[in-house]
């Protein structure tokens, strides 16, 4: 090969090398990735991953073919100004055109058939008898979880038992959100006036992250949650605990805090079962998360903060500073009152 356009060739190969190095670097650079979509922990996400792997391989083959063809066209099978001889004038070849229509079509069929199969398999219309129903209710900007058959209502953190079919039935109280838990369930939009669903069976106990993935307003970025896949035994323990009445502290800061709770307007939006009532039509006591066992949760405020006394104080003092646009008003609590209230809330294990 004559040294034609050495500069161009060198530059292209440099660019290509950097690109490849970059891609590999991407694969190699360190985790952990709490929202990783490539670490499936349920039957649903494993089906998705196997489809993804298949498509990635096919896509990569096509890309390599295209790159090789381009290298051939640009560097090998072409001439430059000043070269002797006539360039080709080929501008039609029926065989070639048929090949590059039929072969991609076959590749696409190879993708489409398992795609449709997976769609149908992962969206069942009936569920086995022991399926656990979890209701997900999205709010601006936090997640509420209800277990109708178990009488549990909580927020930010959802627990599900492993190796049992779970049916998430989801709706929104305001705008469209999206329930994204990549390891366990992929995502589904959560639409007001409509009940969407995800059916899955998780297989690996652990703590997994989730986040809202449909732009839902100012604090869309702050609407996160945690999924706990428990062993069946741990799950039963958790349910039993959630069904216990809330801690009623009798002394110390927590007791003082309980009094502040009783006087403050918190109960208009938040429920502590047995302590503050709620209306049957769910208008009173349901605008904010259920706090009955608030102290037992590891995260708060849409899972953007760790549940520590400092963070709870920060939140109550000025919700809007922590979560722009938050619907919770500033109560004007400070100093000892605030600390007592925090102590009370943290005592609600």
């Amino acid at each position: 090969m004559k040294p034609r356009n050495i500069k161009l060739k060198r530059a292209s190969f440099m660019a290509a090398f950097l690109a490849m190095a970059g891609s590999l670097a991407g694969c190699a650079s360190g985790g952990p990735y709490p929202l990783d979509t490539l670490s499936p922990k349920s039957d649903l996400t494993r089906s998705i991953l196997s489809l993804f792997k298949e498509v990635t391989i096919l896509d990569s083959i096509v890309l390599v073919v295209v790159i090789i063809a381009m290298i051939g066209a640009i560097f090998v099978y072409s001439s430059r100004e000043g070269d002797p001889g006539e360039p080709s004038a080929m501008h039609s070849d029926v065989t070639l055109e048929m090949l590059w229509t039929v072969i991609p079509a076959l590749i696409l069929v190879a993708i489409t058939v398992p795609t449709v199969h997976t769609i149908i398999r992962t969206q069942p219309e009936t569920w086995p008898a022991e399926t656990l129903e979890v209701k997900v209710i999205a709010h601006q900007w936090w997640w509420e979880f209800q277990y109708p058959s178990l009488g549990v209502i909580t927020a930010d953190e959802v627990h599900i038992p492993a190796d049992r079919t779970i049916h998430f039935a989801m709706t929104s109280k305001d705008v469209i959100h999206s329930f994204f838990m990549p390891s366990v369930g992929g995502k589904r939009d959560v639409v007001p006036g409509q009940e969407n669903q995800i059916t899955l069976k998780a297989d690996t106990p652990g703590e997994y992250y989730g986040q809202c993935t449909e732009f839902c307003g100012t604090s869309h970025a702050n609407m996160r949650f945690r999924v706990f896949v428990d062993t069946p035994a741990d799950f039963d323990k958790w349910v039993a605990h959630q069904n216990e009445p809330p801690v009623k502290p009798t002394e110390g800061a927590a007791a003082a805090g309980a009094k502040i709770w009783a006087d403050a307007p918190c109960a208009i939006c938040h429920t502590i079962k047995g302590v503050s009532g709620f209306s049957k039509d769910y208008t009173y006591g349901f605008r904010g998360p259920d706090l009955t066992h608030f102290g037992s949760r590891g995260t708060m405020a849409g899972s953007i903060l760790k549940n520590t006394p400092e963070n709870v104080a920060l939140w109550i003092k000025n919700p809007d500073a922590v979560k722009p646009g938050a619907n919770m008003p500033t109560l004007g609590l400070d100093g000892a009152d605030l600390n007592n209230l925090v102590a009370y809330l943290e005592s609600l294990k």
Partner: protein
Amino acid sequence: MAAQPKALHLEQANYLEGGGIYGWLTTIDHKRIAVLYGISALVLMALGGTEAMLVRAQLIVPNNHFLSADFYNQIFTMHGLTMIFLVLMPLETGFFGNFLIPLQIGARDVAFPRLNALSYWIFLLGAIALNLGWIFGGLPNGGWFGYANLTERAYAPGINIDYYDIGLLILGVSSVMSALNFFVTIVNMRAPGMTFMRMPMFIWALLVTVILILLAFPALTVGLIFLFADRYFGSHFYEVIAGATPMLWQHLFWIFGHPEVYIMALPAFGMISEVLPVFSRKPLFGYPMMAYSIILIAFLSYGVWGHHMFATGMGPVADSAFAITSMLIAIPTGVKVFSWIATVWGGRLRFTTAMLFALGFILEFTIGGLSGIMHASAPIDLEQTDSYFIVAHFHYVLFGGVLMAILAAFYYYFPKICGRFMNETVGKWHFWLTTIFFNCTFFPMHFLGEWGMPRRIYTYAPDMGWNFWNKFESISAFCLGASFLLFFANIAWSWFNGEHAGADPWDARTLEWSIPSPPPIYNFVKVPVVHSRDAFWVEKYGDVEASGLGEKRVNVEFLPPASPEEVAGIHIPAASLYPILMAGAIFLAGLGMLVGWFRLVFMGLGLLAFCAIAMSFEYREWGEDNPHQVSESFLGLDNRKLGVWSFIGSECVFFASLISTFMVYKSRSIGVPDAQILNIPLTSFSTFILLMSSLLMVLALAGFQRNNRFWGTFWLFGTAVFGLIFLGGQVYEFGSFYHEGMLYNSNLFSQCFYTLVGFHGFHVFIGVVWLITVAIAGMKGKIGSKRALSVELCGLYWHFVDIVWVVIFTLIYLMRTINRA
């Protein structure tokens, strides 16, 4: 006919010279309008690029406080809106389309030059309307896709979404008007001999693009009208409380939105198909399949919109159907990519900047297309959608694809536009820096998406594993932005100081290179006669397959300039003040809506009506048949008739969207009133009246065609009277409903009914105004007798409105007992 520019020797003037500022404000020359679009779009590109820089600056580190959450949401919204509606579309259709279509098909201008100018001024003012928030605060902040019900007053109380709604409505008018213009131009004004299969591929691409615009924008318009009604008139088209669903917005939006991405992609395909053959000295590979694949892509693009909604719970049947159609659309796209590579294969390559960008396009677009195939598989999309994986995908197709094609076209066509080359050295730096930093900015987004980073978040936690690549991307993005400064500087410098270019600096293949650079006002001295594809190449070298290495038979650089005698017979339509005035009127009306000052709205609409009517009388040949235009046209048809039919086609989609909403919502409406309130006897009478008015209309046309001015005018007024009776019936009907308690926003039925039937009534009203205008013109003897075109056109519109009533009467009134089909 009309005045020619004074004190200018037409045969020597190029289109850039003369007229002063007033000349530019009133221009109707497609080339000047193109330059106006180009400058505006480049300024807006700088704005959109700055918005991107702000986004990346906020995301460079986790938990950043550079931008507030609310401002970030405004900025990412504006970045999307600006790049799509104010940069890519205007550059492709407004700038390149406008400049090149007449030149490539051998025409002197587009079919409707004043409408062309009007499109530009409406575009400019629409762009300003969308961006008013920079001055008054409150930029649109609901994302470019503005999903309901986040955009309802309850969740978006400020003016932000109003700018969005009204800005996009205004911009839509501009786009559809342009599309209609280009459609008629391409179909009917091609030079003799230029059959469809001999057109440049860019013209194919634009032809199909404008069909997409005509038939996709109405769906968006209807969606925006519903949003407007919700926000201003208290209706509930997207609100659950009334039984409606925000999903309606998504469907209407994506029925528009998916064709919209092809509206952006197809012109780019056309540009690449122009550049590659020239710099390979080879004909485009597989021309027929390239043309058919464009048609197939456009056709399929109406069937894939649900792939934007795989996560919304449409159910397995819909998910599967949309997955299948989305995969299908990859086939013709793949055909194009392979054909482009085969075009280059075996050629004699010249690596000008334009060629480099074109080659880069192939690779980047392919990468974007391959990630698109992943998204087309619904289950995979459940992990990928709404994540940075999607952001990577569409930036690869829109930036690495469409924008790089546009840049290739810039470097290629700049000499034709202003007679000077862009600096090639700076251009090559621009190319390499852009390619490197583009890939560095956007390729890692595939990783971030795989690691779950959602879209549209103003910040992220530090423990997600996203920190390094976000920082990497942000720094790369800043460098990418800087490389664009090179581009802008190159344009600015080269316009005044670039190396001079002749008519055919690249030794190219198509007709636009056969005339001087910059072109004269009239484009071609003599309309060319075309005998083959790549007509100019064949004229130079004798054969499409010629390598171009031999002697030229014709060297346009040495053609003598046109003589005054040759030029004397060329008609140039005069400049007009009405386009800019009408755009101003529309802007006033929009402004009135935004500030809630309805007097301003009516003033604006009134001024608009006045200008429209005045403009239609501006040229002496108004209403006259135009045998000159018809005989010179490719299909032997009148441009205006083609225009009205194209408009009717667009209206079909408009009414279909309104009717679909009615059909879908009527079973969800809560309570009374419902369809039982409809008065069948009264409406039957109105239906008879409207049908008979169509009869009167054809009698009027027949009268004029038999040169019977009296009866022609008489029947025209008769039609108008019957139209008014129909309107009277509507007013009575609405009034009686109002008294029975059916307000506009009473329930879903009432708002759907009033909107659909109200818009139909509005169309009747416009028809009556049109009828009376034509009737008065008829009385004054202004209507030509041979075909009485102005009456015929009014008639077409009138009969169409009648046909729509036939559908409405059947579906809404007579089928009122059917709650669910």
